[in-house]
């Protein structure tokens, strides 16, 4: 398998705390990787560095041979739009937009025509089982449905990797299981690389690989 992400001696300090401390690893195309650790271990910070939401203080991240650490804020935004999909624990949907519009959000600033945009959003919605909820607003959806919308939004640009930060953290166990199955199927069926942050052992176990963090460093891989 090809290396998609290569992390070299990566460090990030938040305030006085070294949230990520000199870590190196790589992630291959098509892998389902769990980043696991206790609260404060630096797993969310690492995910935000990998997805280009934050910049590292030291070290290097090569994403498909691109150095993302040197990019400007706007270049990073464009990088995220083209290459990554991000799913958050708290869904982070826009309350004034309905399901199909929320899914299409990453396409709004592009030149894609409206018809094509909506067709892509509908297809993405169908792929996560939301075919019948297209006109609904976030406050009319269950937690599981909202997370599906977030996943569909993350998939709309055909990303190379899907980053998920505690994707089942705000869901009951039954719904969380379904979301996990969805992420697994995306990985297995379309070969999407998935990097998931979790503190839950049962979720980490279904992944190809677990990167365990402790105090910002890799404890076990």
């Amino acid at each position, binding site marked *: 398998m090809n290396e998609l992400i290569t992390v070299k001696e990566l460090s990030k300090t938040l305030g006085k705390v070294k949230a990520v401390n000199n870590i190196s690893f790589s992630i291959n195309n098509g892998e389902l990787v769990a980043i696991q650790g206790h609260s404060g271990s630096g797993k969310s910070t690492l995910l935000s560095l990998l997805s280009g939401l*934050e910049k590292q203080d030291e070290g290097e991240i090569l994403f498909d041979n691109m150095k993302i650490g040197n990019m400007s*804020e*706007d270049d990073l*935004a464009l990088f995220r*739009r083209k290459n990554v999909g991000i799913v958050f624990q708290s869904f982070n*949907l*826009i*309350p004034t937009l309905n399901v199909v519009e929320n899914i299409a959000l990453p396409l709004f600033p592009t030149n894609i025509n409206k018809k094509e945009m909506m067709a892509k959003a509908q297809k993405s919605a169908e792929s996560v089982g939301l075919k019948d909820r297209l006109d609904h607003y976030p406050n009319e959806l269950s937690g599981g449905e909202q997370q599906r919308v977030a996943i569909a939004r993350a998939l709309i640009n055909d990303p190379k990797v899907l980053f998920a930060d505690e994707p089942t953290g705000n869901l009951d166990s039954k719904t969380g299981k379904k979301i996990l199955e969805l992420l697994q199927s995306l990985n297995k069926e379309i070969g999407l690389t998935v990097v998931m942050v979790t503190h839950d052992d049962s979720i980490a176990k279904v992944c190809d690989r677990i990167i365990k963090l402790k105090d910002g460093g890799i404890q076990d891989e």
Partner: protein
Amino acid sequence: MLRYALKELVKRKKKYALNILVISLVVVLLITLTSLNTAYKDASKLPFESIHSSIIVQKNGNVAENTTGALVSCSLAPIKKDLISNIKSLDGVSEVSYGLSLWVFDEDTFKRVLGVNWDDSLGRKIKSKIYVGSLPQSDEKIIVEKTFAQENNIILNQKIIISGEAFIVAGLSETSGKDIVSSDIYANLKPVQEMAYNSKNLQDTETFDRSDINIIFVDAKQTKVADVSEELDSLLNKQDSFSGKTPTGQKIGSYSIYTPESFENQISSIFNISDKIVLLLTIVILIGTALILFKSMAHAITERKKEFGIMKAVGFTNKDLKKQLTLEILIQVIVGFLIGILISLMVLFALSGLTVSVNIPWELNPYPHFLASDPSSVNTIQTYPLPIQFNPQQVILPMLSILIISFLTIHILLKNIGKLKPMEVLKYE
């Protein structure tokens, strides 16, 4: 992005209602203010509209001791015709017309007689009012004003006597009673000059030569009216001292120069606001608008911080965010504007019911005021409907001001949004 902007405004309409209300209010205030200001300025021109002229020149003269025979009207002094060529040579003057206005105290009736040249602007204006008959083809023919003809049972081709001379009625005209210089009889200038020259009472009061006139109408380019008026004043009122005064206090021998601006001070109304006050009010309104819009937009943007974080996380650049916010503001401005213009039209329609009173100087009023015991007590106020109207140009100032205020506000607020890091607002949710 337009879809998102529209959804944002519709779904959170309460939040944006204040902005739209403020924009509408500013449009209404500024349009009403400038419309009123313009309307009162235009109102001062109304007395001049009927004569199609921008400046009137008269010379103040002596008051006759008795009211018999032909007299120069309003105690005006004769003016030498040579003066016309001097006035014509002034920069900005496009046409000069003149006439001789007489009051004729015949035994049977009092008549106002105006002698004119039918081919100048004054003559053409009277000519256009003839509704029956034809233009006088000879010095014996005259035009009679409709009301005067009705009151005195005068008909076409009738012979009437004016100051001892016989004239034939060639036509009837319909002139407005509101006209500055209106008359009962319109005749060729020459026979009227002869009438004045042969009037003993007039010659006892003033020295009148056969070619003299007593009223000059100057057409000047609109932008040059004030300059021409000043030049006329320095050309005509060179004398340092004049002897005596007319009943209304004008110096005998001096020239009175009337322009639409002469009437501006004669208009009294709480709505007649000076340019300086309009400017001051406009500045106050715009500063207030800027503060309210800034606060309201800053509040709305702060509340949407999380949304901007989401947008950035999914790939919106700062330029995309600016485009999105600009679109939202633009829609608010357009909606506010349309509402504002609609309300403005209603306000202007309501204000069009107002009237404006203009105090006409008695020398320009055709009524022989000196017959009254106190000339100043004679009512010379004329009332016109306020000429208020919606001028699309008036939209430009509020539109530009609000657009500038809005875009400056976005520009300032976006500096903070630009620095926003998505994880700062998203990770601790």
